[in-house]
């Protein structure tokens, strides 16, 4: 086993789909770079709307793009304070698990026709199930830091999680009916624009992505002006950095899912290119970026909802809309089967 063979074996291992995808392309590396870009973009867009510059002198020529690198460095070298009466192990593990479990669903998201890490007939259901793991750690964080404001923040996070997950499930089922399959690769392969098929489900899914990642009108769990930083009040240093990044990772995953289900995956790419592993994935990433930019633009537009407004939207509005979406897709499938066949 000479050295060159060893290197060649490692490289081939790295290029295997089930290793490359979760670590590099739709997985941790791109998500990490994307977080730094996204937060910088959010501050710049909010600054543009508010007639000012936003972060600039960090790297003047590139318009302050290194601002997030500076913030990350500060978090790294900041003293992580662990309060005396907080539950130590849970206090430290909370943000790490929150950040970690937010990535898991990318393991099932296909990059192109042939290049998918794990393929299964019910990959859509698996992704949805994996999505609901990471919000639980908000509750854990809220409870572990033994501070009144984080207790209330964690409780609020609990209310909101329950109120947005049911419409999420129902709207995905509604759109899956129209595709006829639960396998993400086939859904993406059909190149059909889900938005046109069932616009109600698309609307519900979009609102849920902004609700689950606390984008602006629904930024209630860590509402600054009411309960300081919500569940993350006691966190400092890199632990806080992880919690802040976790919501952006969740938005990244949800917007990838949104592009596959509603924006037709790698739609404009025709047959011969779909086998190329990276190109369709990049197009999908571009569409996901558009969805994310809309999400972060809301910071400059909306004030914050109160907890009971958000819950009433979640339970009353979104729930009925998602049932409507199911009936709508039932109607279409019935028409397709009976009338057109």
């Amino acid at each position, binding site marked *: 086993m000479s050295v060159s063979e060893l290197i060649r074996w490692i490289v081939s291992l790295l290029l295997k789909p089930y290793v490359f995808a979760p670590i590099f392309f739709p997985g941790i590396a791109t998500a990490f770079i994307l977080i730094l870009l996204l937060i910088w973009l959010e501050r710049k867009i909010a600054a543009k709307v508010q007639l000012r510059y936003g972060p600039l002198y960090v790297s003047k020529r590139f318009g302050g793009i290194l601002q997030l690198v500076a913030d990350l460095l500060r978090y790294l070298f900041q003293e992580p304070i662990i309060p005396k009466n907080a539950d130590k192990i849970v206090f430290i593990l909370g943000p790490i698990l929150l950040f970690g479990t937010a990535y898991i669903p990318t393991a099932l998201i296909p990059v192109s026709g042939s290049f998918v890490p794990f393929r299964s007939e019910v990959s859509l259901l698996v992704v949805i199930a994996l999505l609901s793991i990471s919000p639980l750690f908000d509750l854990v964080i809220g409870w572990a830091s033994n501070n009144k404001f984080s207790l209330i923040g964690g409780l609020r996070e609990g209310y909101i999680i329950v109120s947005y997950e049911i419409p999420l499930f129902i709207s995905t089922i509604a759109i899956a009916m129209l595709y006829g399959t639960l396998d993400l690769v086939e859904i993406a392969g059909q190149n059909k624009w889900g938005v046109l098929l069932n616009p109600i489900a698309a609307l519900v899914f979009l609102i849920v992505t902004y609700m689950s990642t606390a984008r602006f009108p629904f930024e209630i769990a860590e509402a600054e002006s009411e309960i300081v930083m919500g569940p993350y009040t006691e966190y400092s240093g890199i632990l806080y950095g992880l919690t802040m990044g976790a919501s952006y990772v969740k938005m990244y995953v949800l917007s990838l899912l949104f592009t596959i289900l509603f924006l037709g995956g790698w739609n404009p790419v025709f047959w011969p290119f779909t086998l190329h592993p990276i190109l369709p994935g990049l197009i999908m990433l571009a569409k996901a970026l558009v969805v994310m930019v809309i999400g972060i633009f809301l910071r400059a537009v909306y*004030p*914050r909802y109160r*907890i009971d407004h958000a819950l009433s939207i979640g339970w009353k509005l979104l729930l009925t809309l998602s049932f409507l979406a199911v009936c709508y897709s039932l109607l279409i499938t019935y028409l397709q089967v009976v009338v057109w066949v």
Partner: protein
Amino acid sequence: MSERILELYIGPQHPGSGHMRFHIKVDGDIIVEAQPNIGYVHRAVEKIAETKKYIQIIPLVERPSLADTANPNLCYILALEKLLGVEPPERASYLRVLLAEMNRIHSHFYGIGILGIMLGSSTAFMWGFADREILIDLCQLLTGARITYSYIIPGGVRRDMPKSFVERALKALRYIEKRLKDYDNLFIENPVTKARLEGVGVLKKKDAIRLGVVGPNLRASGVRYDVRKNTPYCVYDKLDFDMVVLKEGDSYARLRARVLEIKESIKIIRQILKEIPEGPILAENYYKMIPPKWKDYYSSTGILKFPAIFARLKPSPGEAVARVEGGRGEFFFYVISDGTDKPYRLRMVSPSYRNVILFSHLLKGHRIADIPAIYGSLDYFPPGADR
């Protein structure tokens, strides 16, 4: 039953409350009892005033309500002029009202900005403070200072209006009116703002009167009381503007009342810029005491040096009361002099101190998320309250 109640301290560091602390008893999300704990910025203006000469008190009196400094200065000088028995010339009164109204506009923008950031809309905060800077530039052109003008002195004002002021002011006011439309679409008519403010912190008319509330909070509950209309001072009787009175009395009405008052103040400033008469800006008997070198300095630059008498100003023994409609409400001054060059007793009641009583009355029964909404809508300035 008691262990259901959670005791919360929304303290001086908490973003939901300025420089004060709320002792809140919460049952679930509903506030059972709220007690404000103020005094965090109590710097004893009344005790210091007894150790300062009359002219030194002007900057002292402005510091507590820094967002709205022209009105306490005007109120103190009106009380002092009653003691001294001196009358400012016509042009000086017009300049005083001009500065007071410009200060009212940028104080209201300060209030809207703070309400915006309390509700979470950082754009309303940034816009509020951006448009405030336009008015501050105008005040800087007129008085030379950003927000602490000390512009009004016994018998008149310190500077005349520069030549370029009128058309720059009209240009700025046109820009502000255009900007107010943007505020309406983005922040005031925003469905989320309406959801957060409508029906929150309702102050009924008889409660507003009973609790002695002042300013836009009072007029938003339907009480027709504005010092500029009820007892006009300076030249307010010659200006026609109408009092902004709304009926609902909730936080949304208070926000709208402030925006409408900005429009009224713009109308007043336009009239002043049209009707301001020519003439001296300091009372005749004080003007005679200025040395000739400073007189032609004044005629060339329009900047007035104090006459030497102000250092040893000694009003006759007696007492005087004055009230002025500030941005946040009614200032009330009560000056007692015993013939020496320092006042025997200076009583300053600022509008925010009259509004403190509202917190424990309004916060009961609302949710935690309503604390910033109500706090922001009352436009409460803690240094002004604690003096």
